[in-house]
């Protein structure tokens, strides 16, 4: 067992020779909220895409609790314990809120039920279905979405959609949660609420969280440590306040001030 939940070693990827990310070394401890920040186009989402198997890294590798996950498919990586949300919300829009969460529960071993038992309606099918509904309702209650459970996901207000996405990711029972710009498009009050939610998730689900964010209030508010990316490489990493006061970082965000 490694001391880090997520460890990346020289993780990098290039597209047509252009290096979108290079030598990214993250070391995230258990129950940490870790920020991945940087200006637009710095390669933050690319790192997420590598960690979730959308892209296969060109160089380096990454490990979840010491187990190498590089090269696995997206669904396998999810099964190993990395779940994510998306920058532009991706819900199952034509399904109800509760069904969205139930899709997240799909692969949990306690809800195993093959295709044949479901087609022939074995008692097991009804039992797992009942249990899945109960678990999903539990999750929805935690996120304050219970009253919306029978609405179509696309009809939810924006902030609730973000929450639902987190709930769906948590339903897959991950060890590491990746949040891609969770506060994008939120007003200050919604952001404050979101910060509470993220802390709540860490404390109550025993979760480790890696997040991308531009909202510095949120980053300074909840992140224990951050890594700052620029042009695909890590500028600095460390405790949030220290890293953000690094002159290199300020230059990256505000440009050279000669």
């Amino acid at each position, binding site marked *: 067992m490694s001391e880090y939940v997520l460890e990346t070693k020289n993780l990098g*990827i290039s*597209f*047509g020779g252009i290096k979108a990310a290079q030598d990214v070394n993250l070391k995230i401890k258990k129950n940490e909220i870790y920020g991945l920040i940087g200006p637009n186009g710095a390669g933050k989402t690319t790192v997420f895409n590598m960690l979730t198997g959308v892209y*296969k*890294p*060109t160089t380096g590798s990454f490990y979840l609790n010491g187990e190498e996950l590089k090269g696995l498919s997206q*669904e396998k990586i999810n099964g190993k314990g990395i779940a994510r949300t998306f920058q532009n919300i991706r819900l199952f829009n034509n399904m109800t809120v509760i069904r969205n969460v139930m*899709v997240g529960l*799909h692969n949990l071993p306690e809800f195993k039920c093959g295709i044949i038992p479901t087609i022939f309606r074995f008692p097991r099918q009804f039992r797992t279905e009942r249990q899945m509904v109960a678990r999903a309702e539990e999750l929805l209650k935690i996120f304050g979405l219970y009253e919306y459970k029978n609405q179509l996901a696309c009809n939810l207000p924006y902030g609730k959609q973000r929450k639902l996405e987190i709930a769906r990711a948590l339903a897959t029972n991950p060890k590491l949660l990746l949040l891609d710009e969770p506060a994008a498009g939120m007003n200050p009050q919604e952001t404050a609420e979101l910060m509470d939610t993220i802390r709540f998730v860490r404390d109550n689900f025993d979760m480790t969280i890696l997040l991308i964010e531009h909202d510095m209030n949120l980053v300074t508010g909840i992140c224990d440590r951050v890594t700052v990316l620029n042009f695909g490489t890590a500028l600095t990493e460390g405790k949030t306040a220290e890293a953000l006061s690094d002159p290199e970082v300020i230059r990256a965000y505000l440009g050279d001030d000669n």
Partner: protein
Amino acid sequence: MEKLKSLFKKIKWKYAVNYVAIGAIALVLTALTMSGGIKQSDLFLLEKITMNIILAVSLSLVVGFLGELSLGHAGFMCVGAYFGGITSMLLESSGIMAGDGVLSFVISMVVGAAVAGVCGFIIGLPALRLRGDYLAIVTLAFGEIVKTIFQNVTFEIGGKTVGGPIGIRTPRFDKQYFFIIGFVLVLIAIAVIQNLIRSKHGRAITAIRDNEIAAKATGINVTKYKLCGFIVSAVFAGIAGVMYSFANSNVTASVFDYNKSIEILVMVVLGGMGNISGAIISATFITFLDVRLQSVLTGDLAVLNDMIYALVLILVVIYNNAPALRPFREKYNARKLLSRFFGFFRNKHGYADDEGKWDRVPTKIDMDELLSVDVIVNESVQKPDKEEKK
């Protein structure tokens, strides 16, 4: 008694309505046949209706729930018809059993369905790589390839050469009650597909339809479920094909061209995407109308049949989809009108379900391909580079 009552209450009537209605209709028709109240031509119509219901329901799984446009459904039917027909001919010529009996039908059905299922698997493979229009044309191509091959290949059965352009002569199942077998198969098809959809696996399938990227990230095995959808759909199309070969004494491949595929697609679409009951109703209605109009409009008027069909199709689609007609549509829709009369159509929660909403169900046809006048040479930008050697 109390227990029975609670059980009765537990049944979701909205979903049971299909079985109850079809079972009742089948019983009434059986009674009528026994008493000799149905003409031979009507029996033919009934056989055709049961076949088309199975085809529409099975295609609905792929188009409405998996969200992949398939234009080759008749290809699976063709495979089923030929392999089923040949099996029954082999059974008869080898003297094992009469080719037109129930047992022969069951054996042929298993063979036809299995081969069609294999074809479904083969067509499911490109579906993993291709989407939308591209998949549509591949399924269309598959149907045409199957048709062309069966049009030209000949077989040797019992010393006689069969196949080729004239097709095969199958032992026709000329008992009156063939349509009852048809109804039983309809019930089986609906049960299997509806149970599949209303389970965790069905949820996974609809999740892929709604957002494939999110489904993958949520741990859904897209490969497995896409293949599963295509195989189940193809198996039932194959069964419908076997029924065709037993209902008609002659099977020619030219029947199963892409027009037949489109006819099935139209039934699914008019029934409301992702709505099994709708597919059943529209398959019944369209087949009935088609056969009746054919017998009423004869000679020069026969072509009016196609014209009416085309006009109705265009008008229904425009009425159901035109953005400008939305307020009108919300005021007068079939679901609302029906719910006024039948309780089980009413939505207790007052939420919008995802069934029967045309504009809500995306087929992935709307990819953002562009009109280009330049030849694209450098494609590497979209793909990550190969892993570097250490």
